[in-house]
């Protein structure tokens, strides 16, 4: 494969070539020149007024969307130079540079195109664009067109001799898997790379949270989406993943440290609140991943367990709006919340998990709604007064841990941590617990039994697994983890109301979003639901102007993602092989027995 990458034959009419026909060296030079021009343009003013979000009027100092375009153009330049064979850049593109260049060039063009469009639309006409925007736009256009002329990273499959333009375009964005090499770096250097990787992730994440206004956030999504895919095609992502697998504990610690640093990077306590809510949402998604991803049980009412935990903790928190006149210490409130969720999990699970098929989905969907409606009705009028009905339980006091009131700002080493930052750290502690529980239970006798049940329930029971028991454990564990997060959530948000625990609504957490976070992120993985949760929390929060169309857009996005990447953003090895079983077979082709073998495998599937 590598030899073909180096000797492309675009002029050969027999093999399908790239979309744009240009000699490869010229195309690469044009890409480099175009992205350099685009990069230069980001230092100029793009518009005359600071009314457009992110102040794009200053020359010599890129801001907002300009920074994003700058990064995109710089990456394009780097990938293109690496494709040119510049020494010292080879590590960037172990899997091939051309698809990565194409993707980043397209991403840059997308961001600048979107920006120019948004400026023109918002300020009323193209006259509002300063020359800087035009220079960048034209540079990005040249780079993108020239990048489309770069040769394929992997030859077009021989069986399709006359592919259409769309097929060739899609093929031009693929790259072969990077060859696996045993790294010769000393381990401290590898660890340093991991740390740098997580620091970068933290910066990207903080940038995303900090974007003000919808336009910079959309630009952020475009840039990150294309650049991440580009880096993926280039093979750096898989290199980094291989390193994190090698130094797993270092990676986990680095991830934890990066998360720990997050509140320190925020001078605005509001962003820390967003961070806390993301953490709660993502943690609950990870808990759901035990149920859905490992055991393969479809739970459509998972958010109700979050609600049970939150309400229970609120009732024993000592607030005056609770009917119980007790004030549990925080740890006891958390345990009570988790315990109540556990009880509900067992009560819901025990009768339904004996059945196969979709009964569980229906029952959990019903339970989710019953929980919300019941809580709404326990208001003293329709039923006994327990939960204050739709008013909810309010004025939940702040958590006091070892005499430290989390509601008060905390000063450590020159940093001031506001209330929300304190809660972020508290929630981070629970996230670590849930991650540990997920990993440890997944890699054990019980975790293997869950996966076996998911794969083939009949075979699993024939191997001696008590299906009902094992599924009930998964379901109850998932419920308990949600209850844990719910207890913290009640304190973070001061109040609990029934309407925050719906099946579907435009804002997380709700059952549909939780399920989507797991599926989008990647079932059965740790990082998948965390990333999926963060995305699904941020997108509705930042794009609130779409309000009425949010669920529609959400549905469309899900369909598109499932079409092009069914295994989710983070694929575990299994899923990746399940959905794309070409190219990656780690088993060499072997002769199957004549005729009988193949048909029998099919029949046995």
């Amino acid at each position, binding site marked *: 494969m590598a030899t073909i990458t180096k000797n492309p034959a675009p002029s050969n009419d027999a093999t399908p070539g790239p979309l744009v026909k240009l000699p490869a060296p010229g195309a690469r030079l044009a890409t480099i020149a175009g992205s350099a021009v685009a990069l230069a343009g980001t230092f100029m003013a793009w518009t005359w007024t600071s009314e457009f979000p992110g102040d794009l009027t200053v020359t010599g100092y890129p801001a907002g969307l300009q920074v994003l375009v700058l990064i995109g153009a710089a990456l394009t330049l780097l990938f293109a130079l690496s494709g040119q064979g510049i020494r010292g850049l080879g590590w960037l593109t172990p899997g091939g540079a051309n698809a990565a260049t194409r993707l980043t060039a397209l991403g840059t063009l997308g961001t600048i195109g979107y920006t120019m469009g948004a400026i023109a639309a918002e300020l009323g006409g193209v006259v509002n664009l300063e020359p800087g925007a035009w220079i960048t736009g034209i540079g990005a256009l040249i780079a993108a067109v020239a990048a489309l002329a770069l040769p394929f990273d992997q030859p077009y499959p021989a069986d399709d001799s006359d592919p259409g333009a769309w097929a060739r375009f899609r093929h031009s964005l693929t790259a072969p898997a990077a060859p696996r090499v045993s790294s010769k770096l000393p381990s401290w250097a590898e660890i340093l790379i991991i740390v740098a990787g997580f620091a970068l992730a933290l910066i990207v994440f903080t940038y995303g949270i900090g974007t003000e206004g919808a336009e910079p956030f959309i630009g952020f999504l475009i840039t990150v989406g294309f650049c991440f895919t580009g880096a993926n095609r280039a093979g750096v992502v898989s290199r980094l993943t291989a390193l994190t697998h090698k130094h797993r504990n270092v990676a986990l610690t680095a991830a934890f440290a990066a998360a720990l640093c997050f509140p320190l990077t925020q001078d605005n306590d509001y962003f820390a609140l967003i961070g806390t809510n993301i953490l709660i949402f993502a943690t609950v998604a990870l808990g759901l991943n035990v149920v859905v991803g490992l055991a393969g049980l479809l739970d459509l009412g998972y958010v109700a367990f979050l609600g049970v935990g939150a309400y229970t903790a609120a009732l024993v928190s000592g607030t005056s709006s609770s009917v119980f006149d007790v004030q549990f210490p925080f740890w006891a409130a958390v345990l009570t919340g988790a315990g109540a969720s556990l009880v509900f999990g067992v009560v819901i699970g025990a009768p339904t998990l004996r059945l196969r098929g979709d009964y569980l989905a229906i029952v959990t969907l019903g339970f989710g709604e019953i929980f919300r409606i019941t809580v709404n009705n326990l208001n003293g009028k329709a039923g006994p007064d327990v939960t204050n009905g739709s008013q909810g339980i309010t004025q939940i006091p702040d958590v006091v841990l070892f005499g430290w009131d989390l509601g008060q700002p905390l000063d450590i080493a020159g940093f001031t941590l506001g209330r929300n930052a304190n809660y972020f750290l508290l929630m981070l502690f629970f996230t670590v617990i849930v991650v540990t529980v997920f990993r*440890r239970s997944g890699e054990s006798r019980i975790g293997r039994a869950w996966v076996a049940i998911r794969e083939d329930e009949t075979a*699993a029971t024939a191997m*001696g697994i008590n299906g009902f028991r094992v599924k009930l454990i998964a379901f109850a564990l998932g419920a308990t983890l949600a209850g844990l997060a719910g207890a913290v959530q009640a304190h973070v948000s001061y109040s609990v109301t029934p309407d925050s625990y719906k099946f579907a609504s435009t804002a997380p957490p709700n059952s549909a979003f939780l399920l989507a976070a797991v599926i989008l992120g990647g079932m059965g993985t740790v990082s998948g639901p965390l990333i999926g949760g963060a995305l699904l929390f941020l997108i509705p929060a930042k794009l609130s102007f779409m309000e009425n169309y949010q669920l529609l857009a959400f549905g469309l996005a899900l369909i598109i993602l499932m079409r092009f990447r069914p295994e989710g953003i983070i694929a575990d090895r299994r899923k990746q092989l399940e959905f794309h079983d070409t190219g990656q077979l780690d088993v060499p082709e072997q002769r199957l027995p004549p005729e009988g073998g193949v048909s029998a495998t099919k029949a046995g599937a």
Partner: protein
Amino acid sequence: MTSNGSSPVLDASGVTMRFGGLTAVRNVDLTVNSGEIVGLIGPNGAGKTTFFNCLTGLYVPTEGKVSYKGTVLPPKPHLVTQAGIARTFQNIRLFANMTVLENVLVGRHTRTKEGLFSALVRGPGFKKAEKESKERAMELLEFTGLAKKADHLSRNLPYGEQRKLEIARALASEPGLLLLDEPTAGMNPQETRAAEELIFAIRDQGIAVLVIEHDMRFIFNLCDRVACLVQGEKLVEGTPEVVQRDERVIAAYLGTPFEGAPGADELAEVEAAEAAAPSTNSRTEDAQ
């Protein structure tokens, strides 16, 4: 028939399985003694797999009882495996997206105790048990010749190796009786020979084997005793020589002889052809 006088491992008596109006298995008695390899043959749709499902608790037999080493088995698959009967499936049912090693480790489920709590705490007991399980699983992969592929996903194994892996997974539950449902279906002659060796080796470990197969040469080579099932009823049972020569068995496989039935030598020819042809097996598979 229990000529060698050893104690019965499996004792099924009067097993009947009805699906609505259809009686798939009718009043079948069968015993398997320790150290024995018993074959179960019969034309397609005779009820062999259904009988296996009744033995292993996947179906609750309409009538009859199954006992293992003297205790009556409850019709729950996991309890049957716990008691000591392991099986493979006619249509391979591996955990496709688990690795080869993980598949065998799942087979160890009944022989290990660690629950969720000890998995979370990860005490020394847990680590020791995991290590032992892994070692035992690797031994079994060694035994079946799959050790090199321990880290591969089981779905990526070639067909013959998937059958072997199913056997390894079944052996992981340390059974006293192994039920094999057409273990050589779809295999080429060399693979079939290797499977034969493997089954003898399993028997030599003291595990009794009950095997369904359409490949007559394989069955008559392998088994100490053969039972023939036709339309849910046990037609004959006996040593391979007896069953091989039984008119009713031949008739069941080739259809009832009519007036002026073909000569004996013609019959034998057809039978030999059938026994040799692996394509018979693939037809069987497609019928499922």
